[in-house]
């Protein structure tokens, strides 16, 4: 069969498939005389086009024929094997199962990340508490003075520089800042995990230094009542971002029986739910920090009570939620 005979014989099928794809992919809104495409017909035409492409290739038909069939099959392939991952049902499944299950599946990484974060926090915190001048080796003198002012009794709202913008502005600021830091902490894991280790350690040390310093200055009551609620979400999320980054790094350093690249792809896929989840947690944390933690009129007892509920809820969520479906 010559290429032109081949084209003539199957022309009609190709045109039908092309029209259907144009409509499905919305390249054309409307084609004169064309019916709305039916799924089984498109699939059947696609399989036929695949056969014809294989034949055309085996017979070394001219490029314009191969090219037309290639574009036809590539487009149809994209349409037929499309996956819809978004939607309310997917979201419900994510919250009730995928996120906590992914965190539990990465328990060793979470443990290591927690230690990498908490140990410098405690050590630096205690060091600074007993020798306050050490705070200057972690934060600058200006910043230390600023922190002191933010948590002093004179501050209009806790945790903010005087005269700074209102609750909403701070909400935006916290989201951008905190989610950005946690994404960086995750992505830096691509360098054999070293970047994540650095971010965890650095954040732990700076938070520890500030906490130790403020406690030593006698501002512990204001400071801890401020941070205790949103830290349930914020500190957990930072640790989780580090854990996900460590997973990436570990996949590269010790790929096991996979190639390094396959191992990395696999790890990225597995820890993706953790990254979405922690971003959501940081938005919650930002809302609490902006609209609740900073309110001066709330009694400390109420703040500690709510904080206790939040911490228990977060820990129980990761420990228990969706376990029956595991």
């Amino acid at each position, binding site marked *: 069969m010559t*290429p032109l005979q081949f084209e003539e014989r199957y022309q009609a099928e190709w045109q039908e498939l092309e029209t259907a794809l144009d409509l499905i992919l919305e390249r054309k809104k409307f084609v004169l005389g064309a019916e709305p495409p039916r799924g089984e017909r498109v699939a059947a035409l696609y399989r036929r086009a695949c056969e014809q492409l294989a034949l055309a290739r085996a017979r070394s038909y001219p490029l314009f024929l191969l090219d037309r069939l290639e574009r036809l099959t590539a487009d149809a392939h994209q349409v037929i094997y499309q996956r819809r991952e978004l939607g309310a049902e997917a979201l419900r499944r994510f919250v009730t199962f995928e996120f906590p299950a992914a965190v539990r599946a990465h328990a060793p990484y979470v443990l290591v990340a927690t230690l990498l974060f908490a140990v410098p926090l405690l050590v630096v915190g205690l060091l600074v508490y007993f020798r306050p001048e050490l705070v200057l080796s972690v934060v600058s003198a200006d910043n230390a003075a600023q922190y002191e002012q933010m948590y002093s009794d004179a501050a209009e709202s806790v945790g903010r520089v005087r005269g700074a913008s209102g609750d909403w502005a701070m909400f935006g600021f916290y989201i*951008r800042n905190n989610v950005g830091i946690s994404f960086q902490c995750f992505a830096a894991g691509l360098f054999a995990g070293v970047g994540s280790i650095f971010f965890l350690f650095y954040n732990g040390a700076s938070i520890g230094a500030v906490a130790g310093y403020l406690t030593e200055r006698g501002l512990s009551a204001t400071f801890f009542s401020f941070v205790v609620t949103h830290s349930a979400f914020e500190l957990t999320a930072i640790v989780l971002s580090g854990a996900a980054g460590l997973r990436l790094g570990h996949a590269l350093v010790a790929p096991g029986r996979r190639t390094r690249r396959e191992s990395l792809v696999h790890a990225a896929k597995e820890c993706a739910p953790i990254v979405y989840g922690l971003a959501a947690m940081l938005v919650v944390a930002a809302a609490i920090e902006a609209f609740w933690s900073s309110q001066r009129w709330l009694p400390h007892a109420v703040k500690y009570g709510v904080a206790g509920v939040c911490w228990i809820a977060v820990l129980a969520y990761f420990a228990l939620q969706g376990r029956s479906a595991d």
Partner: protein
Amino acid sequence: MASEVDAVVSAETPEGILLELRPAGLTARFLAFALDWLIRLAVIYAAAIVGQLLGGFGFAFFIILLFALDWFYPVYFEIGRSGATPGKKIMGLKVVMDNGLPVTPAASITRNLLRVADFLPFLYGFAIVSILMRADSKRLGDLAAATLVVHEPKAVPKIKLEQVEPVIPRQALAPRDQAAVIALAARAPTLTAERLDELAALAAAVSGDAGRSGRVVTHRVLGVAQWLIGRRA
């Protein structure tokens, strides 16, 4: 059709067909990035003006927009129908999975979050090195997300030269040789007359003109191509 010089990545479909994906190189991707960057800048500028009018709430809106543009501008467009940010679309690029399927939301988010790693040590240094070193032009984020940035295929024009009369080949031709002659005819409109003559002289044996060259011989070789694709006098 893949050869040693083409940067083509093949992806096999369940139907046993190899899809040919053509990864986009550094220049195309850089230009697409620059266009996207300008678009984002324009949006930020407009939002700053609007935000200013709204006070504290406007500032929150502005800064959340900055955050969203930083991290999710590419994701939003890549998981849309075209699989490409406006910049990529203008450059005729799109993001697909390694197997040629539309990029999944998870993969799109992964490749865009890992931009941070690609950006290091400065100005997308690792991304540039990775794109230049790899035949499939992946940056680090593409490696982890199993995605490719490919050229949208463009239609190849049909073999024209209808005024050329079909000529019966003077020797039996293997499919490979037939394909070579037909490919020459397809490229004919894009070549200069002199170059076309040179190339046709190499294939002159098919029309029984071995060893000769010139306008007439070229015409006869193109005639053989017409016969091979199925035209008869």
